[in-house]
């Protein structure tokens, strides 16, 4: 099982903390060590604004004494500090309560080879800092070449190199390394005294998959320019077309409603709906942990449960709540390998691609709104209610007529899932939570 040891010092530290925990009185112990390196540059108006380079380490652990849980974390890896924290935790656990559901996962023999997922691109990490800076400068320079752009929020490039180590008292010890890079740009444009803003960014694990400065600049410019001269529209109910990155937040909201932790806390309107039809048959959602190179892929979760591919909604039927070991035991289910350091997190949580070209979805819309950006926090998982500020493009007679702003959209996720009009064919995995263009039959727009 120890075939993937990349850094012996950190592995030894994690194993030491596990054994010290057990020696101090814990029955179970789980230790995570994160070692990360970051590079970040932001440029604006052709000049470097900020340059950050750093490395940091942290250790977190969870101990169980007689079914009572205590946890701790530290960025001070001095053995004296860690010894103190472990002793404190064992002492603190005595004051907690016995919880029959608490504990580490059962040991499994099945493992996923981290290499098989291709999560690390050494070329991305070792890219010359000068080149990283050039990418950001170039992206902004191209965009500012467009005369309609009047100001820049700046462009940024960031890069992360993360080595994770997990060891636990059930014999698990594994490490894996991940890379990530992100290039982005924010812009403003102005016409007739009205300023509009938007931008674009793209993040990948592999350098050769990252969109070029030209591509990012072009998208950022188009996204900004198309909002010029916005109008306000009347309050009405119309179909809403979600662009792919808007489908992403909708899916993110769906995730929070199918997370096992929300379910046992009754913090979701889907709590009693496992096995029910909750959506249109054209709506299938997966949580796939094992897609090579993808942003959300993991060989094992934060408890060491192997990552796996799940169907969350199968042609409209709710098939899985996503669980860590604790939520699974509370709900009488099995862990889905979604533990995320004390909670539950998505891996690659995505809406299955449809078959319709987004341009055809627009063509088939007599009257409606293409949602290009949402602002604000109005999401309530307990009821599924949605109410957010919106920016978008008004569609009339199958064509984009004009941009709109200062409106809100409101609806209910439960009803929206049953009211799917069309699913686009443009799924691109540019976020770990994502989906293609999606048209919902009707939502309420509040305007004039």
């Amino acid at each position, binding site marked *: 099982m120890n075939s993937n040891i990349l850094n012996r010092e950190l592995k030894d530290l994690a194993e030491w903390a596990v054994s010290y925990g057990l020696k101090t009185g814990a029955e179970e112990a789980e230790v995570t060590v994160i070692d990360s390196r970051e590079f970040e540059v932001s440029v604006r108006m052709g*000049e470097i604004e900020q340059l950050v380079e750093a490395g940091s380490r942290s250790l977190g652990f969870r101990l169980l004494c007689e079914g009572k849980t205590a946890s701790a974390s530290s960025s001070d890896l001095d053995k004296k500090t860690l010894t103190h924290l472990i002793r404190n935790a064992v002492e603190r656990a005595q004051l907690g309560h016995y919880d029959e559901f608490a504990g580490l996962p059962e040991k499994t023999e099945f493992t996923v080879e981290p290499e098989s997922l291709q999560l690390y691109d050494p070329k991305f990490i070792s890219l010359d800092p000068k080149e990283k800076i050039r990418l950001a400068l170039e992206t902004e320079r191209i965009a500012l070449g467009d005369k309609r752009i009047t100001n820049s929020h700046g462009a940024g490039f960031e890069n992360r190199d993360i080595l994770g180590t997990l060891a636990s008292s059930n014999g698990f010890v594994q490490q894996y390394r991940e890379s990530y890079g992100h290039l982005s740009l924010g812009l403003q444009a102005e016409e007739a005294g009205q300023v509009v803003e938007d931008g674009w960014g793209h993040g990948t694990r592999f350098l050769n998959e990252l969109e070029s400065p030209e591509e990012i600049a072009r998208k950022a410019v188009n996204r900004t320019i198309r909002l010029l001269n916005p109008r306000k529209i009347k309050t009405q109910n119309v179909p809403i077309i979600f662009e792919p990155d808007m489908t992403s937040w909708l899916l993110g909201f769906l995730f929070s409603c199918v997370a096992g932790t929300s379910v046992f806390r009754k913090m979701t309107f889907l709590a009693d709906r496992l096995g029910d039809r909750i959506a249109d048959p054209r709506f299938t959602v997966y949580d796939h942990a094992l897609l090579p190179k993808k942003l959300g892929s993991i060989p094992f979760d934060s408890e060491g449960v192997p990552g796996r591919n799940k169907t969350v909604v199968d042609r409209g039927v709710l098939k899985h709540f996503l669980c860590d070991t604790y939520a699974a035991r509370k709900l009488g289910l099995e862990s889905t390998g979604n533990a995320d350091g004390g909670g539950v997190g998505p891996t690659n949580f995505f809406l299955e691609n449809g078959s319709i070209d987004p341009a055809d979805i627009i063509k088939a819309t007599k009257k409606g709104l293409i949602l290009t950006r949402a602002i604000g926090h109005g999401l309530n998982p307990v009821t599924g209610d949605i109410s957010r500020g919106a920016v978008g493009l008004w569609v009339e007679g199958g064509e984009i007529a004009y941009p709109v702003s200062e409106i809100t959209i*409101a609806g209910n996720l439960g009803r929206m899932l049953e009211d799917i009009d069309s699913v686009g064919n443009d799924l691109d995995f540019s976020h770990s939570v994502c989906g293609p263009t999606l048209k919902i039959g009707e939502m309420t727009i509040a*305007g004039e």
Partner: protein
Amino acid sequence: MINSCALVFKDHFHIPPEDLQTFLKTALSRGGDFAELFLEYRIFNAILMEDDIIKETSESVGLGLGIRVISGDKTGYGYTNDISSQAIRKTALTAASIADGNRDYTPPPLYPKPPSRNLFILKKPASAVSLADKIELVKSAYASAQQHDSKITKVRASLTDLIQYVTIVNSEGTAVTDVRPMVKLVCLAVAEKGSEREAGFYGGGGRVGYEYFQHDLKPETIGREAAGEALHLLDAEPAPAGEMPVVLSAGHSGVLIHEAVGHLLEADFIRKKTSVFWDKMGKKVASDRVTIYDDPTIPYFRGSYNVDDEGIEPQKTLLIDKGRLSGLLQDRLSAKILNMTPTGHGRRQDYSSIPIPRMSNTYIEHGEYDREEIIRSVKKGFYAHHFQGGQVEDTGKFTFSVSSGYLIEDGRLTTPVKQATLIGSNIAILNSIEMVGSDLTYSLQTGICGKDGQEAPVSDGCPTMKITSMTVGGAR
């Protein structure tokens, strides 16, 4: 003099003061204009109660050091939690590389001292309260929510406390230490009726000691209010949609001032000319009734601090004076670029973050109207009661999310309603603030503000206010 911070500094960093000077010298060795070290040590504790049991306790230690070098308008930054001389030197050289020349400058000697005032004099600091007593507090909040009504089906209560020790030294001779406490007790309650389900939230705390929960806000009140909000929402109807007069409740509505005004007066958005306010200094941007302050010096408030994260003593700052734009929230770099005076609003999430201009406690000054008088003046409109938060764009377009409210009909609050987003353009809305109440109230001491990926504790306040017309985005 007893200086607990200096002791902590010595215990955890083992850095002799003369070495601080050396590290700054190294940081400037490539020709930077300004260098700074930010040393941080923090201890965070949390207790969670759920499903009738104390489910988990946790403790977290943060130790690290950030080094910043400014060269012209550029910032170089490095951080480390390996605090060996060798690692710090390497970090200093990383930050130094933002400049590309040479400089041999020895900064003045540094002897970090506490700031001149202490806004947080605590009777019972977190360290003086036993875990057993803290657990009792959580249980009290939990029990009072659970016992409030038979329709309450789930409760979650949690208590967190934090103590942060910072030491800030720079090449201009600033050398200051500070101790910042923080406590927060919150409760979430779920109510069910048939297949309907709603959640309510309440909480409080601040940079206070545990005596706060005996005198200022009892845990029972926190539990009861959370349960009450959940029950209230069970009876609420969907909110209306469209443009209408809006009355904002005192206290909770402070988030509107935070979003619509505060963010866009953060001086980094002004110097970049991305804020809609960048060319409006001294100009009229709001109705005469509107006066807004940001005050980091309110004792015991979440957003307060004795010294900011750049070592500058903070100032109560007048942002809008009877409708006229009159002040900005400055950090060191923005003040330098704009050639203005720093106001002590440079804040950072922790040692790994570059300081940026932030709000602290932002509030709108009270007016003369009675709350009832304001509500009576509306024939048909919306009363915004509780909020989930808000967001703003530099163009001035902002939203904030109302979790619960009421319809106003013929001058009275009638049907309870839920879930609506209010949206507007800030200058237009500020000009349509028609009435300002006499009842200035502060929001719950639980607020967090996010900017550039950094979180900062904040609070806000406002009296009851009437806005002539605003877009309410409900589902009906």
